[in-house]
């Protein structure tokens, strides 16, 4: 009996191994065969809410492109892999997409940290990658790595200038998510610019992602008598931070970056959001038929307003499709060249022109909470 059991286990193990070893499908390299686009995202795990939003934007774009006839006369096929929000998995997912599934390009990710991991692999294997992360280091990995979001130095500068000139703040406090590379980076760039503009950073406090109680930090911040608070984190914590701050009697302006952008923020914090501002890649008020059409389609399919991640994912697909079209082929090097030459590409998140570091030069939208909604306060050109 024992021998039978152990034999069965070893057979199961071998089958599992075979399942990994053998390729899943072999397709003839056909003229009309679908163009395979790979994507990796955090579809499950602690950051699933962003990965799922990313998937929504990506799928919407792919389906629209296919409905319009595809690219180079061929439909697009999306192969999306989950990295479980765990470090180390993005590299494996991307290696599978490139060597096993033979994708022509890779899309992903929202997180700069995981983008860095995958970028190293994509650069090594010479496959173009378009990231949504905002930390400058991602595109510094190599010339095959592109980006569709503006970078943190720009965002930090925009918000620092907004705080100094528009909100007239001299003394500011910082509340940063220490476990989050995006927040740490954005906070650092904001601080640099704010200090350079003559302001004072009176107090800096920190928290970790997934925490809920910020009263300790907020109490200390309130006691320091600052005129504003910069919170470069994600909306999941920002909603609670703003609520708790207002409860504790901290009434000064609170502002942040594009991590704030989500309909969930309004649902969560409601009226506490008075006198708050953030910087976004995408504005629902953009007066362009392209953007309004996108909003309508998104609402129709997903029954909610888009946050800031889905439009960027949508743009990444569109930018890639445009590059493939211009390259006239699906060869990696040709796509790379075409991507690098992207100028004046109009996406739903704005006009994207890639600079020499393969980062887009695009506008930032600063929005402020008024009468129950976030409204456009200021548009900043790069």
């Amino acid at each position, binding site marked *: 009996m*024992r021998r039978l*059991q*152990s034999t069965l*286990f*070893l057979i199961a*193990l071998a089958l*599992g*191994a075979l*399942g*990994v*070893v053998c390729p*899943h499908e072999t397709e003839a390299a056909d003229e009309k065969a679908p163009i395979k686009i790979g994507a990796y995202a955090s*579809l*499950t795990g602690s950051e699933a809410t962003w990965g799922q939003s990313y998937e929504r934007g990506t799928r919407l774009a792919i389906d629209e492109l296919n409905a319009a006839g595809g690219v180079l006369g061929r439909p697009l096929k999306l192969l*999306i*892999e*989950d990295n*479980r929000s*765990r*470090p*180390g998995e993005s*590299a*494996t997912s991307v*290696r*599978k997409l*490139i*060597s*096993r599934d033979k994708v022509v390009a890779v899309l992903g990710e929202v997180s*700069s*940290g*995981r983008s*860095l*991991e995958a970028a*190293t*692999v994509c650069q*090594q*294997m010479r496959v173009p990658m378009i990231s949504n992360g905002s*930390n400058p*280091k991602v595109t510094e*990995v190599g010339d095959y790595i592109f980006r569709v979001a503006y970078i943190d130095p720009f965002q930090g500068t925009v918000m620092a200038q907004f705080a100094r000139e528009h909100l007239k703040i001299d003394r500011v406090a910082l509340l940063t998510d*220490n*476990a*989050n*590379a995006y*927040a*740490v*980076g954005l906070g650092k760039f904001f601080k640099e610019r704010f200090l350079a503009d003559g302001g004072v950073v009176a107090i800096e406090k920190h928290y970790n992602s997934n925490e809920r109680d910020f009263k300790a930090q907020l109490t200390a911040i309130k006691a320091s008598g600052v005129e504003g608070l910069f919170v470069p984190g994600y909306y999941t914590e920002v909603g609670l931070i703003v609520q708790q701050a207002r409860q504790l009697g901290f009434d000064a302006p609170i502002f942040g970056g594009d991590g704030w952008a989500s309909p969930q923020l309004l649902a969560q914090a409601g009226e506490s959001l008075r006198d708050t501002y953030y910087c976004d890649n995408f504005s629902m008020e953009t007066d362009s038929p392209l953007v309004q059409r996108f909003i309508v389609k998104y609402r129709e399919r997903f029954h909610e307003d888009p946050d800031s991640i889905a439009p960027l994912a949508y743009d990444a697909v569109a930018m890639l499709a445009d590059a493939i079209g211009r390259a006239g082929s699906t060869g990696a090097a040709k796509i790379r060249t075409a991507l690098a030459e992207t100028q004046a590409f109009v996406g739903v998140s704005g006009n994207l022109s890639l600079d020499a570091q393969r980062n887009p030069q695009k506008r930032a939208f600063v929005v402020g909470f008024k009468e129950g909604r976030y409204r456009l306060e200021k548009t900043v050109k790069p």
Partner: protein
Amino acid sequence: MPRPHLALLLAIAASIAVTSFAGDIDAYLLDVAMGIGINIILAVSLNLVNGHTGQFSLGHAGFMAVGAYLSSAVTIYLGPSFLGLDGGTIWTQGGLFAAALFAGGTCAAFAGLLIGLPSLRLKGDYLALVTLGFGEIIRVIFQNVEFLGGALGLIGMPAYTTFAWTYGCVALTIFVVGCLVNCTYGCGFRATHDDDIAAEAIGLDTVRYKIVAFVTGAFFAGIAGGLFAHFKLAIDPRGFDFTRSIEIVVMVILGGMGNTVGVILAAVLLTILPEALRPVAEYRMIIYSLLLIVLMLVRPQGLFTFRFGKIGP
């Protein structure tokens, strides 16, 4: 195992042979294979502490982190001056990597000493908590050290890990741990595990055995961390949190505590499983967790334990 030294040399030779064909092998397969190798090293080294010596350690990922960061620091910061401007020959690169791995392993071993010493007074779940705490402290420290990348993680280490290095280290780990446990001195580990009061009574220095277990386990975890860093080419402090420690503990328990072959097979199974389940991406973790439950219900004594009688208390 007859003639273990010969087996070790053969294993190393075989892995070098496979590496020479590495260019022809699917990069993804190689990725999974190296992941398996690293997990085997982690599981076998933890098995020495948890299984053979009976010390419930939940902080193994912390040692892996120390090894990963320190070996990367060596190759990134000290490498260029050692290799010279041309990047060095394959021998100098290999030497650098060996030195980096050894440095990472030694620092991890030192951390193991620091953690092992206070843990001597503690038993069972209290020890688990203290080791968990140390693992988290190490992670928080690395998250805050800017020149090691901070929250963004560390990149820029050269891709030195190959199949040969990985499986060479796997063979070395199994060899060392196996020899340690199966020799006469090694009986002391099991004695400490079974009943440390009786062991003390017959004159065994259980303190020494516990420390040796911790330090050796930590050393190999550090090596695994170094291999991991130079393979993934990007390390993030969150990748070394208690979730990772729990993953390794699951491998050890599933394989049967103290059973080296079982632990190796469990490490292979638990590395392949998430990859094999990729086609059902959304349900992947749900199936994985159900399988864990079912496996334990069906074989409560561990998957590959064939002994009669309980191993645990």
